[in-house]
Each structure stands twice: as structure tokens, then as C-alpha cells.
């Protein structure tokens, strides 16, 4: 059976959609067959981030209302062979899909996909319930801010209440220099509060903004730190044991840069 993973956060703006696009792309790059589902009906974004907006003909509501078959609504990514998108509807509202619809939809996708990633809307209402209904694993995204961590904590509680026990944490948008100055929550602070296992830490990176605005995932180009972080998350999802090296590397780089500056002064 395919791995159905919901990507959620509670709070908005922490990078759920960007993470879904990048983790999905990274998994596809690793040779896995992946579907990313946008469940944010009425405020869809995943299509824009993946640069597939102009290919949408059918959407998730067309599928759940029986307008078309799920395979027909899937949009093939224009760069990666193994990546497919099921877009959300823009002109409908969240009530047009029910949690049962989501379960049926994932069933209809069948076994030919290795991973099904569901991009969850912000909040804990109807859209959230839809998104988690069919999932058997969850990735919770948070940022090193007290408010985001608080929401993540609530989300983890709700996921556990819905019997999703495989919950992994991604800390996104870490500003290493601020953490080192002690001005930002560190990863240890966050995992200490949330008590779920960390699957990745992604630095705050201009490359993400640039590539997202271009409609291509940052992992397309493996040079940036954030791309490496997303690829590591994908590898860990496939069961590979990748040490959380990226963080210490990032620290080293920052330290090195700081040292150079200190020396040059």
C-alpha cells in the first residue's frame, strides 16, 4: 500500500505548501512514484508553486463529485517523470469535499504510487479533517517561533487523537545566525516541547523564495542548503538512515563565515 502522508502545521505561512512541493519533488527525484494532493480548496497554491497552474482542467472536486476519474485529473509534472499533482478547486469551498471522499479518493489512486502527499490547509477545521482522513503518517511543519510551535503542539495532539501515530517534525525557516546569538528558538528547544522525532531542519533561504516565485521547486537545483535539507527529508522518508548532518554543516558554514569576518577585521 502506498504511504499516505499529510503535511500540516496548524499555523499558516510556515511553509506547508513549499515543503509539500519540495519533498514530493525530492522523492520523485529519488525514483519514487509520487502524487501530491492539494486539499486547500478555495485557496489552492500547490499548482502555482509547482508551476502547473495553466494545465489544470479537472480538480479534486470534479473527482469527488464524480465528474471525472481521479487518474484523469492528475497532472504530470513538467520536469519530473514520477511526480503528479491533484489540484484543489478554486471556485468551490471546503465543504464540497468530505473526509469520506478523501478516503475513497486515496483508495481509487490505488497501489501504483509509492507516496501520496497531502498538502493540508491552515487551521483545524473542515479542511484539516479532510486532509488527515486518509493519511497514515504525518509531517508537522513548524518554524522557530513560539506561536508556530504552539499550533504544532495542538496539531500533534489532534493527529494522535485521530490515530495517526507516525508523526515527524520539520523545523522550517531556521535562521542559523539568530539561533547562535540565542535570539531564536533552537531545534533542541522545539523538539523538547513537541516530543516528536525530527525528520529535517530547513534553513531560511532566499533560494526558496526565488524558485517558488518561478514555479519550480528549490530541489531542482541541489546547490542550495535548503534543497539539500529537503532531499535529506525525502531520503529519511524512504527509510534511509541519513544522519542529521545538514544542521551541523550549516553551523559550520556559518561559523566559518563568521570566523573569516572576524579574521579580516
Amino acid at each position: 500500500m502506498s504511504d499516505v502522508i499529510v503535511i500540516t502545521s496548524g499555523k499558516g505561512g510556515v511553509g506547508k505548501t513549499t515543503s509539500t512541493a519540495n519533498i514530493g519533488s525530492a522523492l520523485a527525484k529519488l525514483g519514487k512514484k509520487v502524487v501530491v494532493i492539494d486539499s486547500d480548496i478555495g485557496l489552492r497554491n500547490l499548482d502555482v508553486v509547482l508551476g502547473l497552474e495553466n494545465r489544470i482542467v479537472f480538480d479534486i472536486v470534479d473527482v469527488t463529485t464524480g465528474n471525472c476519474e481521479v487518474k484523469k485529473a492528475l497532472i504530470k509534472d513538467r520536469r519530473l517523470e514520477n511526480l503528479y499533482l491533484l489540484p484543489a478547486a478554486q471556485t468551490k469551498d471546503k465543504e464540497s469535499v468530505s473526509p469520506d471522499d478523501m478516503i475513497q479518493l486515496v483508495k481509487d489512486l490505488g497501489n501504483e504510487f509509492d507516496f501520496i502527499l497531502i498538502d493540508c490547509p491552515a487551521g483545524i477545521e473542515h479542511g484539516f479533517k479532510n486532509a488527515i482522513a486518509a493519511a497514515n503518517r504525518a509531517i508537522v511543519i513548524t518554524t522557530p517561533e513560539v506561536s508556530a510551535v504552539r499550533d504544532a503542539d495542538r496539531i500533534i495532539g489532534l493527529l494522535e487523537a485521530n490515530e495517526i501515530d507516525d508523526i515527524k517534525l520539520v523545523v522550517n525557516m531556521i535562521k542559523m545566525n539568530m539561533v547562535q546569538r540565542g535570539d531564536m528558538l533552537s531545534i533542541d528547544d522545539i523538539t523538547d516541547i513537541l516530543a516528536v522525532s525530527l525528520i529535517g531542519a530547513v534553513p531560511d533561504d532566499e533560494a526558496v523564495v526565488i524558485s517558488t516565485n518561478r514555479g519550480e521547486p528549490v530541489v531542482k537545483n541541489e546547490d542550495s542548503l535548503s534543497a539539500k535539507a529537503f532531499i535529506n527529508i525525502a531520503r529519511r522518508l524512504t527509510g534511509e538512515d541519513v544522519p542529521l548532518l545538514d544542521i551541523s554543516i550549516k553551523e559550520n558554514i556559518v561559523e566559518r563565515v563568521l570566523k573569516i569576518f572576524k579574521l579580516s577585521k
Partner: protein
Amino acid sequence: MNNLLNFKGVKNGLILQINEKASFEDIKLAIKVKAEKGSGLIKNSDLIGVLGTKLSYKEKAILEELLSKLLKINVLSLEIFSYNDNKNNIETETEKTVKDNNNDKCKPNGIKFIETTLRSGNEIISDGHIVVLGDVNPGAILKAKGNILVMGKLRGIAHAGIDGNDEAFIAANSLMPNQIRISDIISRAPDNADTVDRITPEKALISDGRIIIERL
């Protein structure tokens, strides 16, 4: 007496235009006069609203009785009639007319004017032509049985000739849509389209089974 009351025919029925200065007694009298002359054309029509003066509940009750008894008019509403000045009305009215006209499918029926910017999530459906005096942003959808004309930038999705009318066209002052659909043919923007605004008026139509773009 004649200009105290006036019945106006619109798409879905009749509107009763009442002179603002008329007293309620005058109105009652005018109806009676009209009834003596014979209700003729307006007999059995649906009255869907009132223009010119606002009526109290008591007046509405009296008027409804007079209109239905003397003039044999089907009174559906005596509320102030509004000409679809907000978007919700546009949409609900469209749904209604689409239902009504299911029988004569391919024939475009009337023109819908939209005087606002259409934003992501807006959907305009018309069984006639659509004219937008404003921009159509990405994520907005226009669907028309007939043609679509956008006096602004078309960046969203436009679908002309939804019932299989291959003659339909889509024209805009600046034609940069996500997707264009005419009849059952779909065409999308190239992936590496320049983001610079094109401000040449252009027209999209079907030629030899494909959608082509022509300069206007």
C-alpha cells in the same frame, strides 16, 4: 393618471414602476382604472419587483390583493427591484437563466456586463456573451455560451462556446490567460511565457481545429 403606474417587462417577469410622488390612494385608484381598461398583455405575468417607492407591509398586502384580483397578475415579490448591482445577484440570476434555457442549447442569449476586477475564485457563467470592463486575474474563470470580451487584462481562464459553439471567440486588450478554451478545445500558456505585459488587443478563435491568436 397614466404615468402613476407603469408595468415594465424584463427577462424574468414584470416590474411595477410607481411614481415616487403618488400617494397610496392614487396607486389603488390607478390600478382600478387599469383594470377597467383591461389587463390584456400583462395578464398571468409574474411580478418580480417594484421600482420608485418603498411599500409598507400593510400596503404590500393590499396591493397584492388588488393586483392579483383585478389584473390577474401573479405577484412573486413586491420588494424593491435591483438590477444585479452586486456579484452574488449576478451568479444567482445566471443559475436561474441557465436552468430556464436548457432547451435551446447552443444559442447565446444576451450579454452579461461585469464592471469589476474578477479575482481568483470568481466564476462567471453566462448563457450569452460576457463583457468584462476590468481585469480577470489568475484563478478567475469565465464561461460563456457565446463570446468573451475583456476590456482589460485577461490572466485567468476563459471558456467561450461552452456548449460546443466553434464560432465563439475570446478577445482582450491584453491576452495573457492561464488557459483558453473554446468549445471543447483547450490551449494553455507556454511554460516560459514572458511575464512582461502584452498590451496589444488580441483575439483567440478556432481555426482548423486549433486555437489561434490574431491581432485585432
